[in-house]
């Protein structure tokens, strides 16, 4: 969702302008341009289709109400990524610790199944907030600067949260299977 860095295309700019004037048809077209990316991003944090769809819907509804804050000098998809990530984060914080960021054990092929189950159980001990940050750091491979840019958080906030999440990850990995 964040690979492209181009400015909005002429068509996208036209749709954004029309949306700002309250045109719901233009908004539907704008959604169609970005819905796949938003679903893909939300799928990184939620395994249930209903959750992904609700996050995507919330992302676009917030985009509609906050579109006046978008500055056209940056790619629209970056702005939308920020909205989507913050929706994911807000939803994860409301979830119980064992719920989301479900780990798909079948998708990771190399480690032995017992080790995967054991580590997955350890990771579920982390809070959703910590797992969110760890997912961005290790899962997406984003740096502190990239996380700050894509979430809208300050760099110091990202550093603090990343440090705290890594410390907790270290603790649960050190405790190991006996805990």
């Amino acid at each position, binding site marked *: 969702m964040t690979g492209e860095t181009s400015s909005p295309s002429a068509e996208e700019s036209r749709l954004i302008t029309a949306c700002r004037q309250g045109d*719901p*048809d233009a*908004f*539907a*077209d704008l*959604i*169609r341009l970005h*819905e*796949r990316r938003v*679903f*893909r991003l*939300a*799928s*990184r944090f939620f*395994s249930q*289709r209903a959750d*992904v*769809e609700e996050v*995507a*819907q919330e992302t*676009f*509804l917030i985009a*509609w*109400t906050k579109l006046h804050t978008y500055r056209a000098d940056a790619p629209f998809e970056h702005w939308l990524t920020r909205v989507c990530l913050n929706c994911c984060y807000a939803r994860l914080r409301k979830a119980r610790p064992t719920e989301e960021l*479900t*780990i*798909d*054990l079948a*998708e*990771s092929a*190399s*480690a032995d199944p017992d*080790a*995967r189950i*054991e*580590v*997955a159980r*350890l*990771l579920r001990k982390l809070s959703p907030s910590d797992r969110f940050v*760890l*997912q961005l*750091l*290790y*899962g997406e*491979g984003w*740096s502190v600067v990239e996380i700050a840019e894509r979430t809208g958080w300050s760099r110091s906030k990202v550093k603090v949260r990343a440090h705290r999440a*890594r410390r907790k*990850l*270290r603790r649960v*990995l*050190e405790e*190991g299977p006996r805990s």
Partner: protein
Amino acid sequence: MNCDETRSLLLDPRLDGATTPVLDNHLSGCGSCSAFARRFGVARELMRARQAEHRPDAYFAQRVSAAVPGDTELLGWAAARLLPATLALLIALTAWAWLSTPGPSGLVEISPTDDLLTWAIEGDGS
């Protein structure tokens, strides 16, 4: 390199799973850190594993665009967002009014009722 430094280095995202001779040297002689490294490797792999990607159905955009709030709904939405703050302000004002109002005994002390009654019945003596 001790165990603490080794584990910190392993968790550094910038290392990204790469190893260094000094790290390998410690891991080969330390069972505890070696187990930690294995668990962390699995954890990183699990976080990188692509989960099933959900895709929007053909009517998603239509549904969402139909649900966009109009101006009236936006006002309602704003009112709902402001409701907690309004209630808190109301409670604070009520508490302030309650606390700053003297009790019955205090009212008697400052009440001019007796003087007024005397003045009304007896006049000011002139």
